[in-house]
């Protein structure tokens, strides 16, 4: 209910710019849920996740923009983008099956950068991606002849496209949450958790670790590709700039901050890390109003606060803001065990 009227509250209360922020919040929630399948469920540290986002976005741009003169409908392009990303997920997963932890992180990081560099340079000899200039005039989503690209005028009010995209993104995000929750509590989810805990023991329990890891990569990448397609349609413009390493790390931070493996935590992390930087913009206005000039640039402050927040997290809530039951128990029980040992110590003294 609140989700349904949220854009109107934000729009009238804080201005239409905030509806746009809401749209991005939903996109990042979608990305974070996808990455959580790989990192949180299966325990495979992926630092190149944004590459799948890029693939989904570029496929959308190729199939629905003047670049190749193709204008396929979004309900066709979006699943294709998700599938392409899923395929690349398997392509990335296959050679990295034997790698874990740090080594896997380095290879995935390389993969993410390779995709971005490809996008940056594939304007010659054949202009595939239009290079650093990016691709423009991407078709907006249109459903049953109603284009999301133009604002709607009703009852003397104007609703910009951000409102329509909000509901579209919301639908996809809810779908993603549903799928992720169902997967977590299933035979597949248990197999992923087992691999995360101990890969050798998982294999000794009859789990095909190769297939399960590829499946995790593919599922995560599919969500990323979906988000990428939505992003391209929403922005109407994409360039390699949008898919740099920082974005990968940001999405990973959302998961870690919110609580790895736990969907509500992941959502909270995505919301906070998207909204807070936007809210910090007001600090600039505040400084102008009180000091008459901008003493500290909010953009710089953003990074500082970000760092402080992450360090504070590690100290005070190492399992995340909303940890999964498992992790909560794990961290809480460590204290419990210590207490018990102490109690035993007193017993023997008494």
């Amino acid at each position, binding site marked *: 209910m609140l989700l349904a009227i949220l854009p109107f509250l934000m729009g009238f209360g804080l201005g239409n710019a905030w509806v746009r922020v809401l749209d991005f919040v939903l996109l990042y929630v979608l990305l974070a849920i996808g990455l959580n399948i790989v990192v949180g469920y299966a325990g495979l540290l992926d630092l190149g996740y944004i590459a799948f986002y890029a693939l989904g976005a570029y496929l959308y741009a190729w199939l629905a923009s003047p670049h190749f003169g193709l204008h396929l409908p979004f309900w066709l392009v979006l699943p294709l983008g998700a599938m392409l990303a899923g395929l690349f997920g398997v392509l990335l997963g296959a050679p990295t099956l034997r790698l874990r932890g740090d080594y896997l992180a380095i290879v995935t990081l390389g993969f993410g950068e390779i995709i971005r560099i490809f996008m940056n340079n594939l304007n010659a000899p054949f202009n595939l991606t239009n290079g650093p200039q990016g691709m423009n005039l991407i078709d907006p989503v249109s459903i049953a002849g109603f284009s999301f690209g133009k604002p709607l005028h009703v009852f003397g009010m104007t609703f910009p496209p951000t409102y329509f995209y909000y509901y579209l993104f919301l639908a996809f995000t809810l779908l993603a949450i549903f799928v992720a929750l169902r997967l977590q509590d299933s*035979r*597949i989810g*248990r197999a992923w958790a*087992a691999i995360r805990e*101990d890969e050798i023991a*998982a294999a*000794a329990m*009859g789990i095909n670790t190769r297939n399960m890891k590829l499946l995790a990569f593919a599922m995560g990448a599919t969500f990323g590709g979906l988000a990428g397609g939505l992003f391209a349609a929403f922005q109407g413009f994409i360039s390699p700039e949008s898919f740099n390493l920082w974005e990968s790390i940001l999405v990973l931070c959302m998961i870690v901050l919110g609580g790895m493996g736990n969907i509500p935590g992941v959502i909270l992390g995505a919301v906070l890390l998207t909204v807070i930087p936007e809210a910090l913009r007001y600090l600039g206005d505040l400084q102008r109003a009180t000091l008459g000039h901008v003493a500290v640039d909010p953009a710089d402050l953003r990074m500082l606060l970000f760092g402080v927040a992450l360090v504070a997290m590690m100290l005070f809530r190492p399992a995340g803001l909303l940890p999964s039951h*498992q992790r909560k128990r794990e961290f809480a029980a460590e204290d419990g065990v210590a207490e018990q040992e102490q109690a035993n110590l007193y017993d023997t003294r008494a």
Partner: protein
Amino acid sequence: MSTASLLQVSCVTKRFGGLAALEEVSLDVRAGEIYGLIGPNGAGKTTLFNCMTGLYSLTSGAVKLAGAPLQGLKPHQIVKCGFARTFQNIRLFANMTALENVMVGRHPRSRAGILGAVLRGRGTRAEEADIRDQARSLMDYVGLHNKGRTLAGHLAYGDQRRLEIARALATEPKLLALDEPVAGMNPSERRQMGELFLRLRAGGVTLLLIEHDVKLVMGLCDRVAVLDYGRKIAEGDAASVQRDAAVIAAYLGSTPVGAAPT
């Protein structure tokens, strides 16, 4: 007891570089027996386990379970054939609950895929309920009553050993290989474990046991093989192995013939 052969290990050799960890080891485990594998530290017992269960590839030799070759198969395929194992250094999924650990063991005997998990149709729900029920009854079977919600990593040491056995049993093995299942347990815990092994045998599971506790091995095992420096030096029933000169030499050191007693 039937005398049909269940596991045949023939001439298995495993080399790590120049080091021969196993040299032409052959075993023959019959269906329905408890087969003990003993030997001094570093004799190659665990290496043999790892070779049989697909964690190591064989340098040469063959392993057959009920006539079907196992060498070259992946660990998960071997489990599916009906050969489960536990580990010497307990390898539970420490941050999953005890019940979830056993439920993971049902993986090779259940089918739900991505679509089933997402749509959760009637078939998937029934399978999931079945997995849960079986996991619960297995926990009761090994004596872990009401511990399903405890994190596996927080169980007492002896309970972790039991849980590992329950988890292995969930895969419905014909042959269960236990790597030092009573190491570090006190005498009463050992006795309880011994009773569990007898119950398992009575239930139709063949056991292959690596153990250091000679008393337990001698009391439980129908037959025993002794490994030393990667070679099998003796095989037979417990009493005859105990009297075997080579075994005594391996454990206590040999006395050169005619050496003067000190």
